């Protein structure tokens, strides 16, 4: 197949959150290959962590990602608690579960809104984000901030959940957004135009998913039933239980459904955790820094997050290795995008939920004529929406 043109997308990507660079090799409108380049937000967090004390690192790793801002400190604290053989108090484990699940809800709603925006369905985008707002306001009351909650510390959590004020507020917020979320889920699955745009697009087969070791909703939408909350229960998941959602088609629709179903399941988990939360202390002061190795694993909204910590007995760690879930998922864009048409490129990239925010100018390079031009996001977005309009006209409705 001859390569007609190459289309670079990025580094300020048209669909989502962080900067990444995708070079799409095109044959007409069909994509034959993709080259992915990273590193635009490489901030040297592992390097910094080797120079900071254990108390400062949860606050450092919290700022790896604004959306997964509970996951990284929790994972790091778990790795250190495993190294130092610290038993976290029960109440702290339940609070970690509650904050983690609320974060999952808001992250999935954010992603669903962005995906709707790419398709061109801005109303759905606004609705998803409207219903995400109460969760952010809830975080403001519970933790002190909409993102960067600073809840986790080594040995427990820093703030308590007040049984009188906070519990009622959490339950009220969830009962307020649950019916809306169900309505929005139906709006996605039952609208023929939306379905035509996202069904059978960006398919990742089970075998490819296993070879690339993908994690999270991307894996669960391709038939791999892996979820750290079930396989290696941390925090309070053993007591509270979790129902893992697995689908087998592997396309963008499955990925969206897995995330929306997970958001609904998270609400149930929060309710169960609030009912069962025991009394007791929320924090245990570590007595001793034990040298050794520890691994912490947490199920982030995007998949399995793993931290490896090596302690040498001093108050500065020897090594902190952090592998965020998107690192395993982004290479899986390549098999998913080959053979797809250009109009679907952005959606397929976004479906992997690569943890970001933003959109900028995009360069188009026509290899044959050696001409370079640049378009802004709006005109490229028009392209995607034109496809939706034609789907409607073609008699899908």
């Amino acid at each position, binding site marked *: 197949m001859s390569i007609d043109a190459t289309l670079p997308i990025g580094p300020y990507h048209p669909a989502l959150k962080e900067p990444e660079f995708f070079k799409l090799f095109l044959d007409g409108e069909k994509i034959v290959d993709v080259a992915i380049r990273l590193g635009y937000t490489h901030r040297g967090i592992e390097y910094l962590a080797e120079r900071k004390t254990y108390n400062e690192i949860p606050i450092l790793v919290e700022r790896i990602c604004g959306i997964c801002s509970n996951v990284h400190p929790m994972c790091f604290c778990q790795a250190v608690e495993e190294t130092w053989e610290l038993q976290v108090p029960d109440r702290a484990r339940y609070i970690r579960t509650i904050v983690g699940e609320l974060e999952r809800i808001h992250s999935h709603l954010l992603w669903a809104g962005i995906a709707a925006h790419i398709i061109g369905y801005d109303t759905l985008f606004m609705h998803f984000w409207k219903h995400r707002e109460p969760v952010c306001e809830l975080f403001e009351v*519970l933790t002190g901030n909409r993102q960067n909650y600073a809840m986790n510390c080594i040995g427990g959590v820093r703030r308590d959940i007040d049984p009188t004020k906070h519990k009622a507020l959490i339950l009220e917020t969830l009962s307020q957004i649950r019916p809306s979320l169900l309505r929005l889920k139906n709006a996605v699955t039952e609208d023929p135009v939306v379905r035509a745009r996202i069904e059978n697009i960006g398919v990742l087969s089970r075998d490819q998913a296993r070879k690339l070791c993908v994690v999270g909703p991307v894996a669960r939408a391709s038939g791999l039933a892996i979820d750290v909350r079930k396989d290696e229960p941390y925090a309070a998941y053993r007591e509270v239980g979790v129902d893992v959602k697995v689908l087998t088609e592997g396309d963008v629709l499955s990925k969206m459904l897995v995330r929306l179903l997970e958001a609904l399941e998270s609400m149930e988990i929060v309710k169960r955790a609030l009912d069962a939360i025991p009394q007791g202390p929320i924090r245990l002061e570590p007595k001793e820094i034990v040298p050794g190795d520890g691994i912490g694993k947490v199920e982030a909204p995007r998949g399995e997050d793993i931290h490896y910590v090596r302690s040498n007995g001093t108050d500065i760690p020897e090594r902190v290795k952090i592998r965020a879930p998107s690192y395993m998922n982004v290479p899986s864009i390549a098999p998913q995008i080959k053979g797809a048409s250009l109009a679907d490129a952005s959606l397929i990239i976004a479906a992997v939920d690569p943890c970001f925010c933003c959109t900028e100018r995009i360069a188009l390079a026509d290899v044959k004529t050696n001409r370079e031009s640049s378009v802004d996001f709006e005109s490229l977005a028009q392209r995607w929406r034109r496809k939706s309009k034609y789907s409607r006209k073609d008699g899908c409705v």
Partner: protein
Amino acid sequence: MKTVKLRIIVEVLRSLASRAYTLKYPKIASPAPQGFRGKLEYDIEKCTGCAACVENCPASALKSISDGDRRTIEVWYGKCIYCGRCEEVCPERAITLTTTYSLVTGRKEDIKSSVQLEINRCLRCGKPVATARQIDKVRLQVKDLVLPEDYDAYLSSLCLDCKKAVQAELLLAGRM
């Protein structure tokens, strides 16, 4: 398809009937809830100048400057990340993170804020010892525990070397 069209119409009517979800901030105030981690403020009455906050700030936004007679603890709001560690570790609860989140200002003076405390000098050799408040606090805690009161006031105002020297003298003179 008919049901989808109907649903859209219902949704439109529902949206028209309810008010707008967004606030016209800053025309309308949008206060942060209680417990929000905003701008940090010192209570000068309570601060003893121990600089525990300075030691524990992960962003190095707090600085302690001692120049003989005065200790200044300074916070630089541009560096502060509102994590709340200073509030947590202050033994006097002199720091609170208020609910002020809007820190935009046109004046350079607003970016930094500081508290100043008096440092006591050693009564014997003149070297700076610690802040007056820190010494008072320690004296209160060891009152009547160690020495008779008339020695207490004098000894607690000495630096460590002079303290050892004076105690040795007292021991030799049989006064202890």
